[in-house]
């Protein structure tokens, strides 16, 4: 019998799991509120997924085009999310993003500048105005390094290379702590906390072609689910339209949307600029319909409409998919993305240095001279832990969530650039509210020994088994299954086959075996992450089967088009009392009428309204 008293325990008021942009923002705010704050991360500090973000963070600063306003950002985001977003979250985001971006500058971020010496902003898909504060194509690095360098002076305790396994709860069912494992030694540790914030990112590692790293195993979803919290909108998985497709070893690696933001065009093998054929009705009046108008836009004509390459990601990904299916794909089964004909070599190297470098080294291709080959790659989860729009607390008391692991902000499809700003805004709100929650609790709850020993036993069993399934091969099997059966275009038949196959992989997982000792053992870590990926995958597949419509990133070939009926519901997933996954159609709250009016306004009317508001304020 395991003696829990021998396991080391550390106490914090607020504990954060995950040290990307959201986790670090949350930790900084919780600490600023005077809380003893700890942050646990699977990798080293500064290596989280945020570091890979390229394009920028969206905020209506209005530095490049003064017509921009939170209302326009709000409208763009709602339309991009196909109106399934949680209205109130989108409001918080659009209103708070500018001040959070400026705060990042105060903490040392050095953004690219406008001629007037302000933070420069670039164009991106679905954003009406140049809105993305950026640093070349390495904005994520700038963001995480700034938060890291600021955070280390705020009295936050960092716990690096420490894997969270499962939550602990007290008698009243609130969160009381979490059991973790040091990756280097394989020993366990218990964190007691008054509130816990998950900032654990997504679960893109369930697919074969993905832009996500090993860390993206849906840990937050699975831990929250196991502890009884609600998940929401998991059927919405964003496939970024432009991942590398060749060589095979880098298939899925991200090619930033900034390539299109800077003017890059998409072509099929016949040389046709095919995006003109895929403009959805909702965006027709705001999108250029001739090459000539698109060229004027690139040249800076403020009256020209945006080129169709800058339609939202769901639309572009599906278009590439269609072209390939129709036999018009590129040599290695993608589309051609050409910036070489649109911009000078000097401009490209200045604006897209890491893309230039990435293709030069990994594909031996010079993007200033030749087109890239790109295709859809699994990139982002719009769904996640269901949270309160104001406090970001989940349905489990004391558990908060922010960033990619939280649901609601992005609805059925996220706009590029809205992720980094989401991390800043909701990281901050989570930190603030988790601190306020913790302040109301006088003492830490006692650790439930039985819960903790079970978590530890489940983890060590994987090492102690004599023989069993190879975790790497099981993971590969899962990736193939998700790629083929729960991909970009979905059908009832394939989803059912996928779910059946998932059942088999889950069975095999019961005998998974990690060879070797507990010290820094990636096979063991892989096996531990696989539990979370399997829960995540099942939640995705089941929600995808239930939602019988096509909306945003969720496309059902057997139910084309958006269905008004489905706009009224979110799919909420919980663990049932029988241990099985339970899915419910939950009716959405009606929107605030003013927010609804803004989102549904005619764009010209809304801009007139903003302009006259500003004139009134000045006089």
């Amino acid at each position: 019998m395991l003696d829990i008293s021998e396991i080391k325990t550390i106490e914090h008021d607020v504990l954060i799991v995950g040290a990307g942009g959201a986790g670090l923002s949350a930790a900084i705010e919780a600490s600023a509120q005077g809380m003893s704050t700890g942050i646990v991360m699977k990798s080293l500090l500064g290596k989280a997924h945020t570091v890979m973000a390229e394009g920028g963070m969206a905020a209506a600063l209005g530095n490049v085009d003064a017509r921009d306003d939170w209302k326009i950002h709000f409208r763009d985001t709602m339309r991009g999310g196909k109106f399934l977003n949680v209205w109130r979250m989108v409001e918080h985001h659009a209103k708070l993003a500018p001040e959070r971006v400026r705060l990042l500058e105060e903490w040392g971020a050095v953004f690219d500048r406008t001629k007037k010496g302000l933070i420069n902003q670039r164009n991106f898909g679905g954003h009406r105005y140049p809105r993305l504060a950026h640093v070349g194509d390495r904005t994520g690095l700038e963001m995480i390094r700034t938060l890291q360098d600021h955070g280390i002076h705020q009295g936050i305790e960092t716990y690096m290379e420490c894997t969270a396994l499962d939550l602990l709860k007290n008698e009243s069912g609130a969160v009381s702590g979490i059991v973790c494992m040091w990756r280097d030694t394989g020993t366990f540790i218990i964190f007691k906390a008054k509130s816990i914030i998950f900032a654990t990112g997504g679960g893109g590692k369930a697919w074969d072609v993905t832009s996500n790293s090993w860390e993206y195993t849906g840990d937050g979803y699975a831990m929250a689910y196991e502890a009884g919290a609600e998940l929401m909108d998991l059927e919405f998985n964003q496939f970024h339209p432009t991942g590398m497709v060749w060589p095979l070893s880098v298939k899925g690696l991200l090619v930033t949307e900034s390539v299109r933001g800077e003017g890059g065009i998409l072509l099929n093998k016949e040389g046709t600029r095919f995006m003109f054929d895929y403009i959805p009705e909702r965006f027709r009046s705001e999108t250029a319909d001739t090459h000539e108008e698109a060229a004027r836009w690139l040249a800076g004509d403020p009256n020209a409409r945006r080129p169709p390459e800058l339609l939202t990601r769901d639309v572009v990904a599906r278009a590439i998919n269609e072209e390939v299916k129709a036999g018009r794909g590129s040599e290695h089964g993608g589309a051609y993305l050409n910036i070489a004909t649109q911009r000078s070599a000097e401009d490209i190297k200045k604006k897209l240095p890491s893309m230039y470098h990435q293709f030069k080294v990994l594909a031996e291709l010079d993007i200033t001279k030749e087109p890239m080959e790109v295709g859809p790659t699994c990139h982002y989860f719009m769904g996640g832990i269901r949270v309160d729009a104001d406090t970001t607390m989940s349905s489990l008391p004391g558990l908060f969530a922010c960033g990619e692991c939280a649901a609601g902000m992005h609805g059925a499809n996220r706009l590029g650039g809205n992720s980094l700003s989401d991390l800043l805004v909701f990281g901050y709100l989570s930190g603030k509210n988790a601190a306020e929650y913790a302040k109301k609790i006088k003492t830490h709850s006692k650790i439930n020994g039985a819960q903790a020993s079970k978590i530890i036993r489940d983890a060590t069993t994987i090492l102690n088994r004599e023989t069993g399934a190879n975790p790497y091969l099981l993971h590969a099997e899962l990736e193939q299954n998700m790629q083929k059966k729960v991909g970009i275009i979905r059908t009832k038949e394939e989803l059912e086959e996928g779910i059946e196959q998932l059942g088999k992989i889950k069975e095999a997982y019961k005998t998974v075996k990690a060879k070797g000792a507990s010290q820094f053992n990636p096979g063991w870590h892989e096996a531990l992450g696989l539990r979370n990926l399997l829960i995540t995958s099942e939640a995705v597949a089941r929600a995808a089967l239930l939602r019988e419509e096509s909306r945003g990133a969720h496309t059902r070939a057997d139910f084309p088009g958006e269905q008004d009926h489905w706009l009224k519901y979110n799919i909420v997933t919980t663990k049932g009392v029988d241990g099985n996954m339970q899915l419910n159609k939950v009716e959405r709250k009606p929107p605030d009428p003013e927010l609804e009016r803004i989102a549904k306004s005619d764009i010209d009317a809304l801009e007139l309204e903003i302009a006259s508001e500003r004139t009134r304020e000045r006089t």
Partner: protein
Amino acid sequence: MRKFQIYRGDHSNGELVTFETEVMEGMVVLDVVHKIQAEQANDLAVRWNCKAGKCGSCSVEINGKPKLSCMTRMNEYGADETITITPLKTFKVIKDLVTDVSWNYTQNKRIKPVKLAPESKTEKGYVMYQEDVDRVQEFRKCIECYLCQNVCHILRDHDKKEEFIGPRFMIRVASLEMHPLDIEDRIPELKNDFGSGMCNITKCCTDVCPEHINLTDNGIIPLKERVIDRFYDPVTILRRKVFGPRKKKLPPIN
């Protein structure tokens, strides 16, 4: 089939273990390590994240040369060349290819954070121009792969980690000192605590930087000059005595 020798073990006990595996077109060294890990050595320890040269996790030594394994193509090597992969030499091995780089994190904490001139703040944010920030943006490209720390002979051969913070943190200081709006002073500790005088500019750090940051010429040498100006140049010392410390000239607000 290609031959690989990979270090297996910890800091005190370890050896090169030979593996054979097939290499496909386009593969980088990290792909090979992963393939061996999945098929032959499930517990082979290696760090990685982005696989695109952006996070700086997968630093190792390949045939003795410090590199990011995710950005090192297999076709850089001869078809029948044996590839030897070992952990960074400057840091203690935790296991296999994973080293203890925690010392670097404690160095960063010693550096005073940024402090911006309040008079440059407007309601639209701080004002500084692209030509003012180009210089620090170069340093801010650093992905903290620690390859520069690994090859710096003060750290690698002489193990003087108590005395010198290393090239990574020299350019971290440079990125703050040369920030157009920063008004903090880090020159005294640069000389007294961070060991700027120990670097004798052999440029090994610049040679290995995967981000092609010109650490020595653009970062370390100018910092050394600032130390000399402050502490050893009689003219500037006198000027400071008479007029007080020189105030930073801030970019104009238009």
